[in-house]
């Protein structure tokens, strides 16, 4: 077990005793991938912050129920996914994934890159949920394969297969969009 994990274990134990600072530090550490997971369930940016707040409330009120501190990430992922799914069902968004390419707002990026990234984002949003969450977690760059498998509560081999499939789907969709664009021209 590395220092970071040992530290996280200590934070979980302190948070279970009601230490606000430890709880905040824990959430800060896991914020990036957690938000990615929520984002992947909602299939877009809408209400992500609302769900994140709901996740925080649940963590604060239920942290004392964590029985295995070493499986905190898995517990956190389940909690976040449930909150996001409940929110998704309640809000019932009309459009989950737009077929139109999404334009990424970054003035520094050149036009071609922006178009390309917009297509990638569109393709990611259009992935089936179980592939989308693996893809987004993998590209959030914060978790190792082992940690991702643990967070998603699936075997590591299953996670790797899903990731390969997700990448293939995104690549094919982006290529399809590019071909369509060439035909339109």
């Amino acid at each position, binding site marked *: 077990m590395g220092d970071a994990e040992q530290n996280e274990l200590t934070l979980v134990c302190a948070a279970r005793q009601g230490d606000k600072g430890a709880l905040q530090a824990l959430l800060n550490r896991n914020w990036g991938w957690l938000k990615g997971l929520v984002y992947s369930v909602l299939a877009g*940016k809408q209400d*992500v912050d609302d769900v994140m707040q709901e996740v*925080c409330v649940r963590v604060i009120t239920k942290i004392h129920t964590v029985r295995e501190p070493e499986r905190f990430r898995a517990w956190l992922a389940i909690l976040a996914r449930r909150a996001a799914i409940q929110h998704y069902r309640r809000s019932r968004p009309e459009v989950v994934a737009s077929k139109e390419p999404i334009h990424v707002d970054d003035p520094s990026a050149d036009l071609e890159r922006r178009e390309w990234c917009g297509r990638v984002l569109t393709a990611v949003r259009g992935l089936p949920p179980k592939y989308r969450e693996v893809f987004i977690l993998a590209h*959030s760059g914060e978790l190792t*394969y082992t940690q991702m498998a643990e967070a998603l509560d699936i075997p590591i081999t299953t996670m790797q297969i899903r990731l*390969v499939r997700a990448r293939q789907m*995104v690549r094919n969709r982006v290529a399809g969009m590019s071909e369509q664009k060439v035909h339109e021209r």
Partner: protein
Amino acid sequence: MSATDDRLEVLIGKLLDGEISPGEQRLLDRELEQDSRARTLLEQMRVLHECAGWVIAQETRSSGADPQNVFERAWRQSKGNAWRRVVHIGGMPRFAAGLAAGLLLGLVLHLAFAGGSKSPVNGPSEKTVANAGDRNRVWPVLERPDSPQITREVEWYGFTDQAGNEWLVEGLREGMAKPASYRGGL
């Protein structure tokens, strides 16, 4: 796509994600040297990986509310919820709480009134009870606890016991019988 292609994609994916082992790295290097399709795939996946990482970072990290603020709001909200959970009870718990409160109030009232209504014994006090064994003592006349305005019909009986002592017995209409005073000279 063949199983070989799948395996190649797994290896390239691991390389891009920084999860490749030394053995897998050697295997991938060999593939890349021998197969131009592998090199093309690596290039495609590298571009996709960079772009996806950038896009997802844009979507999740560079936008939205500050985590500190979100946490503080959640903290306040959770504390409010905890208080409401204590105060707001409904359904069966509320009924049970009401019932318990009612019973408790009833018990308190019962104890208060029962304790306060202990009436003094109106009958003959210990000082008026005749003691047949103490015949020579002069006993005081039994005082009526009732107010003088109230007239009650009584009947008086004379009684001589086996020892020859004479007794005056006061008989009340209510069917009560209480010992009257005894005077040795009666």
